[in-house]
């Protein structure tokens, strides 16, 4: 088995990529993908920690949390995409910079 650190480096890297995506992207769909990345970084953590909780034993709590969290992220995406569709119908764009009404 690989060292725990490799998995953590991976999940932190994924988290940072997600944050970077949220901070720099202007496309609404990409912003959503950024959020998904954050959730998945956390999920990887759960799976990893579940595997390393005790030698030769996998903790079911981490796995169940990851499974539930994937489900919740799906629900979130559904609502978010619905909002994106509404926004697209109204403004005809997916560029967040053009939604200027609320800046500030």
């Amino acid at each position, binding site marked *: 088995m690989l060292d725990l650190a490799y998995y953590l480096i991976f*999940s932190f890297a994924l*988290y940072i990529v*997600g*944050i970077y995506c*949220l901070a720099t992207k202007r496309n*609404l769909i990409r*912003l*959503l993908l*950024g*959020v998904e990345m*954050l*959730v998945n*970084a*956390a*999920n990887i*953590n*759960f799976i*990893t*920690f579940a595997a*390393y*909780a*005790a030698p030769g034993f996998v*903790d079911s*709590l*981490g796995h*169940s*949390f990851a499974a*539930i*969290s994937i489900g*919740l992220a799906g*629900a*979130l995406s559904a*609502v*978010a995409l619905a*909002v*994106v569709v*509404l*926004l697209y119908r*109204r*403004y005809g764009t997916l560029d967040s910079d053009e*939604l200027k*009404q*609320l800046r500030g």
Partner: protein
Amino acid sequence: MFTLPFDLLLIFTVASPILGWVSPKQYRAKICGVFAAAALVVVGVALFGLYQDVVANAAVYLPSNALNFATLRVDALSIFMTAIFLGLGFAATIYSIAYVENSGRTPFYFTLILALISGMVGIVFAGDLLALYVFWELMSISSYALVAFFKEEGTPIEAGFKFLIMSAAGSATALFGISLIYGLTGTLNFEGLVAALSGATPNAWIYLAAVFVFVGFGVKTAVFPLHTWLPDAYSAASAPISAILSGIVIGPGVYALAKVFFTAFLPIQTAWTLAFAVLAVVTMLIGNITALRQTDLKRMLAYSSIGQVGYMLIGFAAASQLGLTGTFLQFFNHALMKGCAFLCAGAIIYRLGSRDISGMQGVGRKMPLTAFAFAISVAALVGLPPLCGFPGELTLFSSAVQADLTWLGVALLLNSVISAGFYLRIVYVLVQPVSSPAVEKIKESPLLMLIPILALMVLIILFGVWPDPLVNFAGDAANALISLGGNP
């Protein structure tokens, strides 16, 4: 399944769209609204039964005999928070019946309100971080949908999306923090966390987890610098939703922060008390000073909510039983005061059709009851006796003094004075002589809007004149949390 009140709430939530589907079209909104209101009353009654159990046993666990594996753990703090969730939720529901028009979608509006309240109740009932996170998402997703619900106008959807992205990123960050806590301890149960971490030597991972959890839950609480979504979302949402969001959705954030920091992160308490003290001052200053220069009534109230969050953080900084009492008390009172203020603002905007404060001259002369309730609620927000804001802010002030953080208390007083500047400005404008034809035409708010407004106003006065029961209750809630942490 769970405890009785929570079961009922979930069942009612699921039942309400079905009821909307079968009921005759022209009465659909009314029927669903009344159903939601009645549901909240029934849940309230059931909650009282649960409260008796909690008083008898200190905490109710579910599954009933599993101390360290319980998914639900109901103590005095849970009951305290649930009471205000249900109370303000009820007021906002009654108000909504008059506020929303009848359309095919209206039943879902009430479903979402019930789902939002279920989520919040679930958060405060949760016995471990898994349950807490699940209900956190239930609350969050319903609130995104509610902010964007009235899609006829542009801003709610935009604000809804901004709110959604920031808040979802926050939830994910909290989830990341929770995963780190899980990695550190191998458990997510609060009692388990206390057992696993008490006496642990602080290491970098604990600090890292604390930062992630703080950022995650702090987004929903609107702590500086994570507050930018709040003014947009609160001001774009419809009035009853603003009241719920501002009044009580702050609550789960405060609750989650308190719950995690006063259990899992007790070993590093000395580090975070100071951080919270600084954040409290910055948050209240940012909120109140920005509110000073707003011209939009709802945005002003939204910014002032940020200031109020700053007050609540004082209790974290004091990190004592008195401080937490103040935090919970202030939260409870804030729900009443800000709920009332947002409902009044909604009623004024509903009648006037404009949100610009300068155009509201003389509204008080045309809508005297609404304006009076508004004046009472903002006076309470400033913290004037004998209204309910006073005992809360007083408790926070004295907890700061007690914890040798007098500067924090002085900051609270100063902010209270600053906030008087904009709160009273609204009242000032409202009581001016009528100057525009638009104001000349308006009349008093509809009865169904007036009832919840006046009921909240009465509570504001009642809890100010007779604060003891509420302060006691908040004190019990704080004790429940302190004793859970096992480190008074």
